[in-house]
């Protein structure tokens, strides 16, 4: 360090506080009572990276105070040991790093494998479920026969459990332009279709007499949800994207009614103001798929058990 060695004239010692004692702010008061600032830690670090201990040791050696003879031999031996430890450390660290690397990529590969396996499994199970469902339908048809099956089919169609076909209306909503703000880099989402818009459209269709509705091929049931998650819209937890097609099966007047009703006026206003695209058209013949994740939640035994003894499960509002 830059501490002046003890050549302070004794007579000046009384001026000011004791010299070479650094003040809390790193300043030292020198012999003349002036405050000198020693380089701070980082400056010193950059200027003189060598441990000052080496210079001190060399000085001691020059004065002939260093260890001699056997002590010196011992210390050299310890140096050799330290270097051996260094080599050991380097090798261990290297091998450790090398050993960790494959572990990391192995974990990644394993995860990819797992995802793919699960996907294949899902497809397999889905196919099996479809096959079994068809089997169940066929068996039920054979067992019940005639009117009961027809009634069941009507109920299923109304509940969204079975695909339906017919004429109705197709409402198309498309996001307007979403420019990126050049200053903030954020996308303006005003002109995007929101979950409430789709809710409004479906509710207007229901009230217009629609019997079945699907949004982008997702059949709505009594418990369907249309929610916004960030910028995505989820219909029954599955994402749908623009353009949104709300297809409904219902009376022939459905499209006209929608266009002239509150919802139609609302969407025309949105289209005018934000540049969304809105279209309501009549469709002659469309097929809406069955809802996918309908779970049987409530079941009660039929009051009159069938002859075969098997309880006839009647689904009550299972969806």
């Amino acid at each position, binding site marked *: 360090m830059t501490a002046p060695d003890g050549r302070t004239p004794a007579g000046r010692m009384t001026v000011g506080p004791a010299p070479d004692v650094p003040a809390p702010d790193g300043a030292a008061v020198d012999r003349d009572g002036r405050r000198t600032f020693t380089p701070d830690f980082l400056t010193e*670090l*950059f200027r*003189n*990276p*060598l*441990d000052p*201990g*080496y*210079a*001190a*040791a*060399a000085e001691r*050696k020059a004065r*002939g105070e*260093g*260890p001699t003879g056997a002590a*010196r031999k011992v*210390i*050299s031996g*310890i*140096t*050799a*040991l*330290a*270097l*051996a*430890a*260094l*080599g*050991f*450390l*380097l*090798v*261990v*660290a290297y*091998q*450790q*790093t090398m050993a960790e690397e494959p572990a990391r990529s192995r974990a990644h590969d394993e995860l990819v494998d797992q995802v793919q396996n699960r996907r294949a499994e899902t497809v397999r199970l889905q196919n099996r479920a479809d096959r079994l469902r068809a089997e169940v339908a066929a068996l039920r048809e054979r067992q019940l026969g005639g009117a009961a099956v027809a009634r069941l089919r009507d109920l299923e169609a109304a509940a969204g459990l079975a695909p339906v076909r017919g004429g109705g209306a197709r409402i198309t909503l498309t996001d307007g332009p979403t420019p990126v703000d050049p200053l903030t880099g954020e996308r303006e989402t005003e002109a995007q279709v929101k979950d409430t818009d789709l809710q409004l459209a479906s509710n207007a269709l229901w009230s217009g007499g629609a019997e079945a509705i699907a949004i982008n091929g997702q059949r709505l049931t009594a418990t369907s949800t249309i929610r916004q998650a960030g910028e995505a819209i989820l219909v029954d937890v599955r994402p749908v994207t623009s353009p949104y097609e709300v297809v409904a099966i219902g009376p022939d007047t459905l499209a006209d009614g929608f266009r002239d009703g509150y919802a139609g006026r609302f969407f025309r206003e949105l289209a005018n103001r934000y540049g969304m695209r809105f279209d309501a058209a009549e469709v002659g013949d469309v097929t809406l798929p069955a809802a996918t994740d309908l779970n049987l939640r409530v079941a009660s035994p039929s009051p009159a058990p069938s002859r075969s003894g098997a309880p006839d499960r009647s689904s009550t509002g299972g969806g």
Partner: protein
Amino acid sequence: MKDTTQRRPARAARISSEGTMIAVIALVAGVVLGLVFDPTVPAGLQPYLPIAVVAALDAVFGGVRAKLDGIFDDKQFVVSFVSNVLVAGLIVYLGDQLGVGGQLSTGVVVVLGVRIFGNVAAIRRHLFRA
């Protein structure tokens, strides 16, 4: 001790080459030992290994520079080596306990890196006169 000034350069050179030989042999021996024993590092110590290596490198480059400056001292080297490794490990351990382990490791690496850089620059000036 009177006439040491006369003989000093030759003696210093001899000691220096001998010491370098020992140092290199010791280093190689350590590497071989590591390869032969292939030790597994306990999981608790694994985060400190890279920091320990950087700290050790700092001590080594300091030692090499001191050697080239002609002021190498065995005791100083050993003490700085051991204390560097221990203090670096301790700082990172403390940081881990305080929840700033990553940042403190970065700080330690920066400070030691600056020192290594400075010492390597001095070594370079010794070796290439540039």
